[in-house]
């Protein structure tokens, strides 16, 4: 397996009126070619900010720490994403080698421009094909994602399509430039359950066919279990646990991951009450000292959790966790 994108020590803060807010804190991970990584965590844990960083697309008030590095491996050698400046250079990570699907399919299409015009525009930006050719490819892609009557849909507006169809069109658009990495930011939360399943199946097929890497962002560990190879669990901007999906689900090490899993409805026992992770997410302005999870952790050991940041420990070569329960030499 060869690395497609490597993220190292990514730290992102936002300048706000209330001061600096940390959204992503010292995050590192690698995605290989053709690998699907799930990114889970509660709202505000920095999933979207991490994903947008891969396209260097965060808001103007974002501040990246000097140690942060994102390296994309392309046929023409490695690209340092965070060093890209000009719009021309950024195209490689914006719609070129990396595409993104957003949570709300309705809101991600410009309302007064046809689906087709937006698809053609993207294709022509990233290649030197003719308009005619771009149109052919777009209609073909719409057909490929299961949209009936694709030639008609091509000249329609987003508001004329159903929710599921919009998300399919979004997928078609994202894949039309044949990216190496697809970022799917909660691509199914806005859809109802049957359509969700269809869209997930469609994405699984397409990954296999195009051999793409995928980052699949969601709140839902159940969806991750169906789709991903590996999973990273985020809490307050930090990755608290990462490993192969089966391993993490069967054998969760971090108290937060355990809490998320306990919150999943069980098929065998549908009457059991749901037990969401107890407690409130701390305000981003009051980041807990030590282990960021200590204000809610049911297994808190003592002062060490409140004062000392737990480092990542490999519980096996592919599975790591950041918790003092698993630090080799507890301080």
């Amino acid at each position, binding site marked *: 397996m060869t690395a497609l994108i490597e993220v190292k020590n990514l730290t992102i803060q936002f300048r706000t009126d209330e001061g600096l807010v940390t959204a992503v804190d010292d995050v590192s991970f690698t995605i290989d070619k053709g690998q699907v990584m799930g990114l889970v965590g509660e709202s505000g844990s920095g999933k979207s900010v991490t994903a*947008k960083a891969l*396209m260097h*697309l965060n808001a*103007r008030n974002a501040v990246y720490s000097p140690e942060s590095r994102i390296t994309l491996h392309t046929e023409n050698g490695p690209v340092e994403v965070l060093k890209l400046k000009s*719009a021309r250079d*950024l*195209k490689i990570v*914006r*719609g*070129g080698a990396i*595409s*993104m699907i*957003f949570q*709300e399919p309705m*809101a*991600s*299409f*410009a*309302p*007064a*421009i*046809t689906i087709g015009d*937006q698809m053609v*525009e*993207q294709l022509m*930006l*990233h290649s030197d094909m003719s308009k005619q050719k771009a149109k052919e490819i777009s209609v073909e892609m719409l057909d490929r994602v299961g949209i009936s009557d694709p030639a008609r849909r091509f000249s329609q*507006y987003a*508001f*004329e399509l159903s929710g599921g169809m919009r998300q399919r069109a979004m997928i078609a*658009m994202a894949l039309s430039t044949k990216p190496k990495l697809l970022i799917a930011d909660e691509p199914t939360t806005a859809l109802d359950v049957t359509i969700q399943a269809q869209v997930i199946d469609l994405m699984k097929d397409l990954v296999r066919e195009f051999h793409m890497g995928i980052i699949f962002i969601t709140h839902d560990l159940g969806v991750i279990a169906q789709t991903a190879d590996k999973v990273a669990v985020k809490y307050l901007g930090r990755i608290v646990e990462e490993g192969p999906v089966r391993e993490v689900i069967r054998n969760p090490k971090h108290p937060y991951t355990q809490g998320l899993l306990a919150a999943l409805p069980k098929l065998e026992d549908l009457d059991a009450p749901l037990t969401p992770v107890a407690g409130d997410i701390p305000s981003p302005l009051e980041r807990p000292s030590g282990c960021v999870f200590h204000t809610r952790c049911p297994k808190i050991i003592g002062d060490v959790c409140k004062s000392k940041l737990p480092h990542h420990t490999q519980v096996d070569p592919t599975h790591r966790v950041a918790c003092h329960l698993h630090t080799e030499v507890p301080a």
Partner: protein
Amino acid sequence: MALVTLLTVSLIVFTLMELVPGTCAERYLAFKNTQGSQITIADIEAEKKRLGLDRPFPERWGKWVYNVFVHGEFGDSCILRLNINQLLADKFWISLGICMAALILSYAIAVPIGIISASSQSPITNNSLRFVSYLGLALPNFLLALIIMLISTVLFGDSLTGLFSKEYRDAAWSWAKFGDFLSRAWLPVFILGWSATAFALQTVRALMLDEIGKLYVTAAAARGVSGRKLLWRYPAKHSLGPVINSLGFDLNRIFNELPIVALILTLTEAGALLFESLARSNDQQLAGAIIFLLTASIVALNFATDILLALIDPRVRRGLMG
């Protein structure tokens, strides 16, 4: 649709005219009375009959509407006893022209500047724009008009008041007169446009900022769209709809400010005439005609903006075509 609105407006205007205490006949004769004539009850009755005031309300309304819509005829003024159409003559069109020019001027400035400033990160641009638009909002039109008059009187010995130079005031329309008109009309247009621009700038900027924050703009950037294309094709194009929507409202506001500016610059145009007829002489026929014309212009503008909206927004277009 526009026609129904107009009919409704005419009904409201006509009812208002009726609600003014006293009838046209009484008013005229009372006016005569103050001039020294002896008036009897019989005179009033006779006058009422002559004016058709003894007829029932719906009939009189129908007649009024018929005359206005079919002949463009507003009848006679109560007090001045002159035909209203002759009385207003070009005045209404001149003031409408001035207001429209001020409206166009303000948006011609506000749209590009508002769009660019909303996307600009430079604090200098933003703060100077903010300063200028506060100035526009805070400095009342009448003060601005006075200042300009003062300056021009001191510098050029001409107060720039009135819409025509002396030699053209009573002349018939000609190219020379029109030229003279233009050389003076820029001042009220500028003064009215001043605060209208400040308003429009704020509207455009707010709408643009709103659009820029939307997900589809981020999504377009994520596809590699950048620079001018990302600004004009995406948020700018989409913020145009609400901007057009606000045009009718703005014209209304400019109309409201016209009388004050007109008073200071001693322009003899409709706005001032309206005030005069309402306040001094209770001339309901004349006032009704002016109010109706103003409302009709705004209804017409709204109709035009609806068509424009349908042209640029596919949602409106498809909505119209079913």
